[in-house]
């Protein structure tokens, strides 16, 4: 029995040995051949003569003359040879032990190759992502910058065309022409606003402010905006509200209004005769607003892309860059909602906005404000209109804020330096040092306190200027106490 095992073991060793092709080459300190054990031909080595230098055939020997023990796991030498190399010094000789490692080399090479290629791809991806981010930022900056460049001359065109239209010496046709210039300039301005907003949405820079507000305020605004004869232009405008509507909801009132103005505006734009109906409903904790029109409808092949940027269904000669619905859809998403379309050619369209919103109680706008906390908060009101200042003081006092007054930009800057202010309410239209200049001044000196800009109601340009200068929020004049307190509360809660 042991005989067999011995035989098997012998054969096994012989097999292993043959596979590994062991070669031992004894060399002296000058790297000259002394003797060998094994097959030199296994490594395509010549039959060395005693005293012959081995450096040519075993180039790895150079530099290791002084080493006592060296182990080199994988060495590729003389092109074809791949082996492990161990060098052991015993007395005056060194023994170079080679064991073939072709298979091991191949296995490791495959793994390393795969790993390195993956790492290279990842690094390339990171580089491209960085380049893309830079390009995107450059694009956004360009658009912001250019929008200002466009606005200034267009404002001038608006002004002149407005004057022209009022010129009594012009005939009817000429007045119409002047009005056409004015309308188109206004349209260009709104296009620029859209492009800028679209760029902000793409860059994910557009933020929403969720705060409680009275739904009725929004509905009344919509009614006022579209209910007059001038606005409805001969169409019947219906405003319907369900009894189940909550009094107060949490959302971004301004953005929600923006979405609705856009959809309803579109409905009016594309409907020649008949009606536009806006229906407000509350279903399963969702605000559902349906805008129905008796317009021409949208063919089914255009409906899939109707919310894409720059997508337009060209109905007649209606103008537009095709960004309004895209912006509205993106805003709806930001508000945890969605915008849908149902339409049939020749039978009008229904745009439905569905928005999940938390319900507030009629006291929630007040309940959200912890008066005891507010007593620690100081609000700097920068306003040169004394009458308005008195009103604002009453509002702020009601909710426990301490008011500090500055009647000019210069005084405001001083107060910001000397007092611990929690919030600034700033009129953007101050004499001498303007509101925009005050904000820029403060932000450039690392003033981090939140600033609410108060702007004239119809002036979108002022709003944009306010935000771009560094305001955190804006309020339109005339200021309603609910919107003032919502805005202040929202900002102060987020800036704790």
């Amino acid at each position: 029995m042991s005989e067999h095992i011995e035989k098997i073991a012998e054969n096994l060793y012989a097999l292993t040995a043959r596979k590994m092709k062991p070669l031992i080459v004894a060399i002296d300190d000058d790297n000259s051949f002394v003797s060998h054990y094994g097959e030199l031909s296994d490594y395509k080595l010549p039959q060395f003569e005693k005293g012959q230098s081995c450096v040519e055939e075993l180039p790895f020997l150079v530099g290791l003359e002084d080493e006592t023990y060296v182990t080199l796991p994988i060495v590729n030498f003389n092109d074809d040879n791949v082996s492990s190399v161990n060098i052991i010094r015993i007395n005056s000789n060194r023994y170079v032990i080679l064991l073939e490692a072709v298979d091991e080399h191949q296995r490791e090479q495959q793994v390393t190759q795969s790993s390195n290629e993956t790492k290279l791809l990842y690094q390339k991806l990171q580089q491209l992502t960085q380049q893309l981010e830079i390009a995107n930022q450059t694009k956004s900056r360009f658009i912001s910058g250019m929008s200002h460049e466009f606005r200034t001359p267009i404002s001038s065109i608006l002004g002149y065309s407005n004057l022209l239209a009022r010129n009594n010496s012009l005939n009817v046709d000429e007045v119409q022409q002047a009005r056409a210039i004015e309308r188109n300039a206004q349209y260009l301005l709104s296009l620029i606003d859209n492009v800028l907003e679209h760029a902000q949405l793409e860059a994910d820079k557009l933020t929403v402010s969720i705060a409680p507000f009275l739904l009725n305020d929004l509905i009344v605004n919509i009614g006022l905006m579209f209910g007059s004869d001038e606005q409805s232009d001969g169409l019947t405008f219906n405003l319907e509200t369900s009894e189940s509507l909550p009094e107060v909801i949490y959302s971004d009132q301004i953005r929600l209004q923006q979405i609705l103005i856009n959809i309803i505006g579109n409905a009016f734009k594309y409907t020649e005769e008949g009606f536009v109906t806006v229906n407000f409903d509350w279903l399963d904790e969702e605000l559902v607003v349906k805008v129905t029109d008796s317009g021409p409808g949208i063919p089914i092949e255009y409906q899939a892309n109707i919310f894409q940027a720059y997508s337009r269904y060209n109905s007649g000669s209606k103008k537009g860059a095709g960004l309004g619905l895209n912006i509205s859809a993106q805003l709806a998403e930001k508000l945890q909602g969605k915008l849908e379309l149902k339409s049939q050619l020749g039978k009008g369209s229904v745009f439905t906005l569905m928005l999940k919103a938390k319900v507030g109680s009629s006291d929630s706008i007040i309940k959200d404000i912890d008066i005891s906390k507010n007593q620690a908060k100081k609000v700097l009101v920068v306003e040169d209109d004394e009458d308005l200042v008195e009103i604002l003081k009453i509002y702020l006092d009601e909710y426990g804020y301490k008011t500090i007054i500055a009647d000019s930009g210069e005084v405001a800057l001083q107060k910001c330096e000397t007092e611990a202010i929690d919030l600034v309410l700033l009129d953007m239209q101050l004499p001498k040092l303007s509101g925009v200049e005050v904000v820029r001044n403060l932000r450039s000196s690392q003033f981090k306190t939140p600033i609410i800009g108060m702007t004239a109601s119809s002036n979108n340009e002022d709003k944009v200027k306010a935000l771009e200068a560094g305001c955190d929020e804006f309020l339109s004049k005339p200021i309603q106490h609910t919107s003032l307190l919502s805005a202040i509360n929202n900002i102060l809660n987020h800036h704790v």
Partner: protein
Amino acid sequence: MSELSAEAQQKLLQLKQEYLVSFPEKVNQLQTCWQNLESKKFAANEINSLGTLLHKIAGSAGSHEMYDIHSAAHSAEQICKSAEMADMDSSSLMADLKSSYERLIELMQELS
């Protein structure tokens, strides 16, 4: 509608009364501004002064929920802005501005 406390409402009412009492003075300011404007042939800085005054009236009137006065002052303010942007004097502009200004004076005098 979310209500202010009775105390705050009382204060606002009082403030509104005081605001109304200030109307004759405001009307006076407007009239003085207008006279300067006419005498200096609608020079740019006079238009600017009038615009600033109109802006204040529009703002405070609106906050006191006097929307007629707010609208009238706001319209007149917009005409001033157009004139400033266009940077020229024009008889039609003056006519429009005058008519808006007179409308505002009329409204404020009615309430004084």
